[in-house]
């Protein structure tokens, strides 16, 4: 049986400069008109947006296109929908194709939702009577019964997306091309859309899905194609391909992370004060007290098996050594390590505050070891913010460490990657 989608050696190039982009446009158009072969090499200022891409899909297959921005995913989708012409290769699509590249495409904001349903459906090739047959179902699916006679310009972006998606999935396509359009809309509607797509899959609809959500890609698709700078890096089972892609992303993050300078401290202040300093305002990781008025020579190391590192495999047993020099006698000293995700989300703390508050301590070097048997944070970049307190006041509070957790392509959602086993029974 012939594949429903066949992409064979497809390539597409674009120009980086607007002037040459238009100039090459004229050349390409004239070559098209006079049946002259298109240039096979890159011309000045051009780059390959997609190269030598080949795959086939059978009826009912689902393929996730993954990769970073500019990888060529949307370019491929547009060529598969016939919106733009390949510069090399051939694409064959057998069946009615419906693309969800932009859910509001073709909508006129001045017209009502109902009028836009008729317009959008007519763009997909439906006749008036065919639209009339599905219009009630579309309105019901979009949950827009009360707003369907209002102009679309009065809709929220979520409502527009609901309307666009509802129209697209009720047109009975054989092939559905979806480009990261479900990011809008509330969770309940997104869930409804995914359930609908599952239904379409079961009905034999072939789905090509561009997504930056790896979990969604794995859940919706059996296969994945990883594109990077226009080249196919991997293609196959969705989970395995996504894992390879995540491994690659982690290696990039690791390189980026190691290239970052170590956290710097504020300049020293010469005259010591007797009272704890005031925080200097809220930052991403809470208030910062960076003057070394009361403490100095702050150091923090993360160790695995006695070896200092900034790159921690997920679930590792880590020892964190935090040390500083007190410049004066302190009453009620406590030290804490606050673990933040890079974006500022506090994940947890380890502290001496509740158990080992030291009532009287003289000036001198203080070292505190924290042992964490399993660091179960999800792969990503993390920050340790370390307050040193005297009673309720901060002697010092700033970032002492940045580290990253790697997961060898682990697909994790949320902030923790819980170690687990499972057993599935079916009766």
């Amino acid at each position, binding site marked *: 049986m012939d594949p429903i989608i066949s992409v064979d050696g497809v390539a597409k190039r674009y120009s980086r400069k607007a002037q040459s982009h238009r100039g090459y446009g004229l050349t390409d158009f004239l070559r*098209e008109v006079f*049946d002259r072969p298109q240039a096979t090499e890159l011309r000045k200022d051009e780059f390959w947006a997609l190269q030598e891409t080949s795959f086939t899909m059978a009826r009912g297959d689902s393929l996730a296109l993954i990769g970073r921005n500019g990888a060529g995913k949307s370019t491929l989708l547009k060529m598969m929908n016939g919106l733009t012409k390949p510069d090399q*290769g051939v694409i064959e699509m057998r069946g009615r194709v419906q693309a969800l590249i932009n859910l509001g495409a073709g909508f006129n904001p001045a017209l009502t939702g109902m009028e836009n349903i008729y317009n959008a459906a007519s763009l997909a090739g439906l006749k008036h009577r065919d639209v009339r047959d599905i219009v009630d179902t579309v309105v019901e699916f979009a949950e827009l019964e009360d707003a369907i006679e209002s102009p679309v310009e009065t809709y929220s972006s979520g409502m527009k997306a609901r309307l666009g998606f509802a129209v697209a999935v009720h047109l009975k396509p054989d092939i559905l091309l979806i480009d990261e359009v479900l990011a809008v809309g509330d969770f309940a509607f997104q869930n409804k859309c995914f359930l609908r797509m599952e239904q379409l899959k079961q009905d034999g609809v072939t789905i090509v899905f561009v997504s930056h959500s790896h979990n969604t890609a794995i859940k919706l698709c059996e296969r994945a194609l990883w594109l990077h700078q226009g080249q196919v890096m991997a293609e196959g089972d969705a989970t395995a391909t996504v894992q390879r892609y995540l491994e690659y992303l982690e290696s990039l993050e690791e390189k980026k992370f190691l290239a970052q300078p170590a956290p710097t401290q504020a300049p020293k202040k010469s005259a010591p004060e007797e009272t704890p300093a005031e925080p200097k305002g809220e930052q991403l990781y809470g208030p910062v007290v960076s003057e070394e008025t009361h403490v100095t020579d702050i150091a923090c190391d993360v160790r695995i098996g006695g070896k200092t590192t900034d790159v921690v495999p997920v679930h590792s047993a880590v020892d964190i050594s935090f040390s500083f020099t007190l410049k004066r006698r302190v009453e009620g000293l406590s030290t804490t390590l606050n673990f933040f995700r890079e974006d500022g989300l506090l994940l947890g703390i380890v502290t001496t505050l509740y158990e080992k508050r030291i009532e009287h301590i003289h000036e001198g070097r203080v070292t505190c070891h924290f042992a964490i048997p399993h660091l179960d944070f999800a792969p990503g970049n993390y920050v340790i913010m370390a307050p040193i307190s005297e009673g309720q006041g901060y002697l010092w509070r700033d970032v002492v460490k940045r580290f990253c957790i790697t997961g060898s392509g682990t697909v994790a959602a949320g902030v923790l990657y819980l170690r687990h086993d499972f057993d599935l029974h079916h009766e």
Partner: protein
Amino acid sequence: MSEPVYRYAATSQSRHPATVGRAILHGFFHARYTAYRLALKDIKGAYAKSSLGLLWDLADPLMFGAIFYTLVAAGILHPGEMAIPYALFVTYGMLLYLTFTESLLASLRLFRSSRGLLSHVKIAPEALVLSVFFRMLFNSSFRILVLLILTLMMTSLPPSGIAGKLLDLGIFLLLFLALIMAGMAIGLFLAPFNALFTDVERVVGLVILPLRFATPVFYTIANTKVILLNPVAMLIVNLRDVATHQGFYAPGALLAWIALFAILFAVATYLFHLAVPVLSERA
């Protein structure tokens, strides 16, 4: 029903012109409803927030006509000998010329005005062409109504009576379609180039303005060469003459121009069909 097969290849579609021709005919036939909805969307969108709607469309040419009528009535301007009242002459001239330029510019701007659509929705290029045609028909219907009412008010019945009037009306409507086709043919032919370089539209704008004065819009033109060599003049003179029961002006030349525009329209449609997948992202 067999499932459709779409094939997108790097090789030129021109290699198989018959296939392209069939695709164009298929597009025109099957995209009628799409084109109708596109035209309706544009029309409704354009007048959604206007109380006077289409009246604004007539305001500009009628205002010009009124100014010229006043100038002629005051003896400042001498439009030359004419068989019909000047008010009728200038109204015909303005509304017909407006129809021509509107058809030309709407087709010329087709890539740019449809950019959002072309980059997200797979649509037969012929649907866009038809939608322009439908829009022009819609706009023209009001103009034709105004012209017919004025003609009935200001002219007498032809010697052939009602039958002759109806025959003239039929020929007038056919010539009106030819006028729209002429504008669309030129616009569509230039549309791919205008998609890449807006200079094209500027040049067209520069030509349209003086062309109005080389066309019997506000006054008669005695020089027959100017009329014969100016296809817009040929169409407008004949439309006005037929509508006011004065017969044809140089029918042979008129037919030759119409045939030429029909060929240009076919070529332009072919080029537009080829251009859409190549230029849609570059517009």
